[in-house]
């Protein structure tokens, strides 16, 4: 596919900008368009930036006119940004996706869509499979707002894929990310002075290192496959072990008190924890990576443990930034 034309949304996010930098270097890609509501800070040269809010109907004209053959949807928020209401985040996620898909519907040239979705769709359950494979998406009822949003987004894409069988839709399901340049639920949790945990629970957690997160996206752009694909660094880590590696005191709370204590903490200026993350801290979640390695062809370079160890030592300043350890 020489002379590809690619459009990427959410290009001003860290991962969006990194992906754009990588795609700029790809000689196969003739034209790269980035869309976001604020211009990216990364030194992008070839990319054409279009300032637009994906919730607005502007996309309806931008997309068909740009005559792209691939859309990368990287504008699904894991949590509301600073000063953003949960309702606005929901709008960006669900309404934004819907607008984007409507625009894709009108663009005849599109051959593939790659979405950076979330493994939050699986939820976190005590009786959950130890490794969710891609077809286990709706085993349990949605328990949090974000889980419902992700589930809705995926339903839109499934619908679209059914109506347009000629378009390949790849839904990447990301586990929570970890990395020094990132600001995610996990990194903010680890930055808390005291780590609240559920008394008597030691869930298995799984993260994706920023490097694996980026490379998996790039691999999926090169080789889009139909349907959902889990994205994470290999293996899991127990919460207790993570807390000990972080050398932080933990605050085990009985499950009945957890919510109120964490809410009080938020009021005195500590980090707030999303409903999804609270469930993760209690029951954990891990996903199966066979589809990512075998079909997309990307093998994670990190394990969850090595990603965490590297992150922690960088934060402590024991390891120079950008030093990369192989898993």
């Amino acid at each position, binding site marked *: 596919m020489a002379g590809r034309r690619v459009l990427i949304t959410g290009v001003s996010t860290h991962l969006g900008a990194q992906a754009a930098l990588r795609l700029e270097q790809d000689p196969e890609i003739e034209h790269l368009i980035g869309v976001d509501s604020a211009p990216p800070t990364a030194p992008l040269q070839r990319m054409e930036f279009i300032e637009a809010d994906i919730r607005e109907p502007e996309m309806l004209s931008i997309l068909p006119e740009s005559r792209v053959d691939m859309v990368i949807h990287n504008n699904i928020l894991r949590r509301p940004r600073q000063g953003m209401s949960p309702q606005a985040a929901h709008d960006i996620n669900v309404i934004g996706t819907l607008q984007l898909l409507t625009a894709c519907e009108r663009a005849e040239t599109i051959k593939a869509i790659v979405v950076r979705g979330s493994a939050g769709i699986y939820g976190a359950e005590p009786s959950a*499979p*130890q490794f969710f494979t891609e077809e*286990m998406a709706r085993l349990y009822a949605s328990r949090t707002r974000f889980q419902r949003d992700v589930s809705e987004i995926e339903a839109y894409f499934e619908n679209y894929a059914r109506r347009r069988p000629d378009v390949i839709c790849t839904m990447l399901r990301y586990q929570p990310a970890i990395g020094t340049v990132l600001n995610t639920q996990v990194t903010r949790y680890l930055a808390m002075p005291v780590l609240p945990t559920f008394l*008597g*629970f*030691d869930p*298995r957690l799984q993260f994706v290192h920023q490097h694996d997160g980026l490379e998996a996206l790039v691999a999926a752009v090169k080789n889009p496959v139909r349907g959902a694909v889990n994205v994470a660094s290999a*293996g*899991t880590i127990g919460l207790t072990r993570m807390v000990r590696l972080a050398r932080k005191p933990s605050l085990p709370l009985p499950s009945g008190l957890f919510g109120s204590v964490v809410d009080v903490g938020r009021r005195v200026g500590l980090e707030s924890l999303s409903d999804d993350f609270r469930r993760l801290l209690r*029951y954990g979640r891990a996903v199966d990576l066979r589809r990512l390695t075998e079909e997309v062809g990307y093998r994670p370079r990190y394990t969850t443990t090595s990603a965490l160890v590297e992150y922690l030592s960088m934060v402590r300043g024991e390891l120079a930034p950008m030093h990369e350890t192989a898993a």
Partner: protein
Amino acid sequence: MNSPRQTRVQDLPLTAAIAFMRRFRGALESGVELPIALSTAAAGLPRSSRAKVERAVERLGGDYEEDEWGFDEEFTEAAFPFFEFMYDRWWRTRAKGVNNVPGHGRALLVANHAGVVPWDATMIGVALLRNHPLPRYPRFLVLNWAFELPYASVLLRKVGGVPASQHNARHLLEEDQLVAVFPEGVKGAGKDYSQRYRLQRFGRGGYVELAIATGAPLVPVAVVGSEEIYPKLGENRLLARLSGAPYFPLTPLFPWLGPLGAVPLPSKWRIEFCEAIPTAHYGPDRANDQRLVLELSERVQETIQQKLYENLVERGSAFV
């Protein structure tokens, strides 16, 4: 005259403990962190306990391994003397036919089940580790409900428990693990004392489908003794609903004695591993063959039931 007595006193464990506490406090007061203080204090201990304390300190620092299922081999090994005590002294267990369990590759152990606490699974594990020429830790499937409980969920996972589901069992077998299942499930765990050793229906034979699909041999296991440790005389629906448990047992000790009621009675145990039933020659496609599945399930159930009766007769009295 004084000096020989002094050395004798120093050998006492109590003095060692006091010295340990003293050094520990001294170190803490001088302002070092807890793990370092612990290891400083441990320097004064006899060598054998010093190694243990040092290891514990390393674990406190997060330096331990859990596999991706949460199984912690080191923890299990540390708990092993306790399980061995239960096996040898408490239950006076005898195991037969351990060589029927394949030394490597996937296999599915199928056993009878009683009681909510999976003692039977751990004892099957001890029997294998002690008597098998190629010992390995079995993984066992536990009622999902147990994983909602604080502490229980952690402990179960650390010693090899996995929430019971087709997905998990299949994944484990595909990793060539040894997996123990209790197809009686809640029906088995919740049966009355008068019903002991009468196998309940083995579900719909899901475990056989699994064995055929993955080509794992089925090893029927009869456990005698486990069904007397918590003699269930009745149950309480209201308490079950309140605690979210599948049933709430009333035994002579539980819940009257509180947590002490969870101490299992010292019955005599017999564990027999029966001849393995190979399934690889059927091919994975026949996993949907209901007739074959039920036939095999029946065969497994009959084998276990027969061996249960044989071992009950052989064992004689339950407690002495």
